[in-house]
């Protein structure tokens, strides 16, 4: 039952804007267009901080650095390759 409730909440969160929100006016659309990059960057930042107040392990930080170095290429594959290289470097050096 709990699992169904969690699944229901998750689907509702995905559907509420897509199904029920009317197409927004241009000004709101411009604001919404500015959200994805900061949101994803924030999610990256939060995944580098472990609870309660610790940074992620060094090899994870190096993986993130590798992805950041590749970010001007604006390619997910490049980010993953950079991250993998950073992670491998961390495993070798640390």
């Amino acid at each position: 039952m709990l699992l169904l409730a969690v699944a229901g909440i998750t689907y509702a969160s995905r559907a509420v804007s897509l199904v029920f929100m009317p197409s927004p006016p241009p000004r709101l659309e411009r604001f919404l267009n500015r959200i994805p990059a900061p949101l994803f960057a924030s999610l990256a930042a939060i995944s580098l901080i472990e609870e309660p107040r610790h940074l992620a392990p060094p090899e994870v930080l190096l993986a993130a650095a590798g992805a950041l170095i590749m970010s001007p290429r604006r390619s997910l594959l490049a980010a993953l390759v950079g991250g993998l290289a950073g992670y491998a470097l961390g495993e070798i050096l640390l």
Partner: protein
Amino acid sequence: MRENGGAASGPRASHPSLAVALAPIAAAIFIFGAVYGTVSAPEMGAPMTFLASALVFSGALQFTIAGLLLAGAGPAALLAAAVTLNVRHVLLGAVLRPRIKAPAPARAGAAWFLLDETVGLALTHEGDAARTLWRAGPVCYVAWLAGTAAGLAGGSVDVLQSAAVAVFPVLFIGLAALSCRNRSGAVRAVAAAAVTAAVALAWPDARALAPVFAAIAVALPGGDS
């Protein structure tokens, strides 16, 4: 600062085909799924672990729930986690809404496939965003289920688990880079990451909502009208 989201300079101009862009995402999701299967099975049992992947289809939330169960949390804490972690979906859905012309039933179906990863793809590929969700989403879903099943079948995946911790930030950095339209977007992304990190370090209890509020805060200053 002016936002230049024109076709020539925008993110859609130079991106690879959806299949090429999707391949590394599916691989990463498979790894997440394998780790989730391994981590969650001792707490939830194999059938419930697989059912959770089939019904919830949200790696971040499912990992959080597995962690909460391990810590002995009750139903209220699990539901609260589901609400707070899913707030970003409302925001991402709103971002995609102007890019979708499909009727409500098709949008309701596409909503099942609204993930961070598919949103990133939909933002950077031509055509109706719902169509991208319908094309990329099933691949991600199968990868997630197959990964979960592999984790349940394969026992210990300590090496994968260690690497999977690193894949989360790497994937989000890649999605942020994909979504950046211009220098202004990059500045906002860096600012949001800094605000989120500061909030998470100063108020750990607020960390689940920090990314959403930081993204909204840095997106508010306009100058593009």
